[in-house]
């Protein structure tokens, strides 16, 4: 059953086979996607027609590689900007929320805590349409009342940032709270005793202690934002983010350029995630 107990060979073999199949199932689509990025064919399919890098660097009329593909490059750049904005805002507000719920007492705290958790149970699509509707109403109100046309309230870059921020902040809050809960509060008392005010204590002691969690939270925020589809779907304007742009291409028939982009995403996120894991582990203690 477990390491320390004797096991029958059929049981052991069967279990190992299951795990093997599971991991094959897990990696098959990714591996195939990566391999076909290098196939010298017009379609992301077998048979194998030889190795090529044209889907990355090509600039022929029928074969535009990703590094020469304006539309896809633009959407990657948009996704980066959105993710950057969301990460910054969600990390700042999420850290505030962690302090608020772990260290402060105020009337209505349980209700607010419940509200903070609610984005976890709101489907992303619903969050997207709610924010779309609200922004639309606000836009109409400002236009009718004061004749102001505010870009923020129209689907587009800023609405995407706000929509993703709305639920990613909850994730950051939970990550930072988990570490803050482990914080030894006598350190704060010691700092106060040495002459520091409450804000100086937070700045010099608590935030330093929280740094690994804040960095981890920011990394998660960036990744979640970069990949978000559901909430973004209803909020995009003319500048599409990468997932939306890819979706439109996949839906309407695909070329191996998508494999090339996928390959870059797989390699990029894996490297970033492993690096994040490595750093958070070496920092934690």
């Amino acid at each position, binding site marked *: 059953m477990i390491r320390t107990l004797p096991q029958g060979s059929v049981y052991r073999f069967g279990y190992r086979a299951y795990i093997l199949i599971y991991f094959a199932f897990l990696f098959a689509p990714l591996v195939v996607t990566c391999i076909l990025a290098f196939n010298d064919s017009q379609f992301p399919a077998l048979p194998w027609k030889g190795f090529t890098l044209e889907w990355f660097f090509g600039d022929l009329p029928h074969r535009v590689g990703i590094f020469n593909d304006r539309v896809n490059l633009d959407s990657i750049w948009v996704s980066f900007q959105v993710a950057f904005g969301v990460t910054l805002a969600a990390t700042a507000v999420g850290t505030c929320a962690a302090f608020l719920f772990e260290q402060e007492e105020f009337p209505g705290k349980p209700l607010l805590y419940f509200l903070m958790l609610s984005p976890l149970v709101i489907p992303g699509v619903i969050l997207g349409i709610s924010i779309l509707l609200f922004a639309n109403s606000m836009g109409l109100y400002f236009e009718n009342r004061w004749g102001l046309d505010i870009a923020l309230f129209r689907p587009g870059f800023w609405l995407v940032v706000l929509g993703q921020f709305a639920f990613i902040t909850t994730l950051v809050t939970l990550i930072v709270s988990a570490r803050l809960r482990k914080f*030894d509060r*006598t*350190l704060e*008392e*010691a*700092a*106060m*005793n*040495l*002459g*520091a*005010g409450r804000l*100086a204590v937070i700045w*010099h*002691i608590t935030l*330093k*202690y929280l*740094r690994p969690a804040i960095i981890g939270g920011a990394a998660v925020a960036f990744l979640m934002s970069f990949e978000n589809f559901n909430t973004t779907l209803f909020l995009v304007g003319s500048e599409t983010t990468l997932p939306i742009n890819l979706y439109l291409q996949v839906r309407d028939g695909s070329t191996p350029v998508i494999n090339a982009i996928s390959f870059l995403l797989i390699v990029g996120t894996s490297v970033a995630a492993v690096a994040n894991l490595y750093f958070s582990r070496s920092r934690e203690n």
Partner: protein
Amino acid sequence: MAIDLAVNQVSKSFGAFTAVEKVSFEVPQGHFFSILGPSGCGKTTLLRMIAGFTPPSEGLIAIRGRDMQGVVPNRRPVNLIFQHLALFPMMTVGQNIAFGLERRREKRGVIRRKVARILERVGLPGFEAKKIDQLSGGQQQRVAIARCLVLEPAVLLLDEPLGALDLKLREQMKVELKKLQVQVGTTFVYITHDQSEALVMSDAVAVMNAGRFEQVDTPQNLYHHPQSAFVARFVGENNAWTGRVRGGDAAALQIDTDDGCRFVCRAAESLDAGSPVELFIRPEALLIEPDEGIADLNRFEVQVRSILFDGANSRLLARPLQTDTELLIALPQNRQYDHIRVDDRIAVGWAPASGICFAAS
């Protein structure tokens, strides 16, 4: 002499529970003052009130003559060494010590010099760049002390800082701490449940029980002249009997113990015949096979139950004949008593002045 810390009729209740009840004391400048009591007696609460983390329910606390009411912890001229030290793990030794100075916005050069000087003083010269987790327990202790002393507080509060150390290191730190205190001349208020720490280091010790001070005195007086049964029992080892007064006065009270012995003993106060009493005798006050010539000795015979060998602190566990009372008797290791074996019957005696009795509650 100037009074650094004055505590006047301070109480603290948490709901219905009274943690500290009408405690008053003064600590003169440069004194090492200890508060000794079992866990839960309210000593930590008292210390936190002085540091400003807990406001007293009533009473006044003054430091160097200044009333501390409403003064927040970071504005008080006292520093606290926490039970688990609370060194900042994210900072180096130097940054830890500089922390308080930086809060006072002192100049960088001044800070660097002060940090170096205090590290030298606590015996850790050149340790500025070390990480906290690179230090041994004793070194961390010294950094915690340096971090407070560098701010030159009026009073240094210590909350059982030696509790986490192993026995050997604790013995060593006791001596070092006392030496350091004498050297810097800062007023120390030290709380502990370990009587040996309190006795070794202090100029004066307050014994605390259930929120009250039982006795404030020098270590010698606490040991030799306890003023309550609690102090007699808590400070040092003691053999206890219960019994009733047969007659006599405070200087020489005649007592019948419940297990049938008859003693003469001094008392803290005059007691009426028939009133119940508690009688205490230190293990080292019980003399083994005393010289026949000594007058006025309370003499009786005991049977040895076991020999508790512990070097200079060796004792006999024995019972007076025909009783179930167990006595501890100091066994000097001068080879004079090497012949004593378990089950031996030996004569024991004690002088009336070396015992003490109190009215039983």
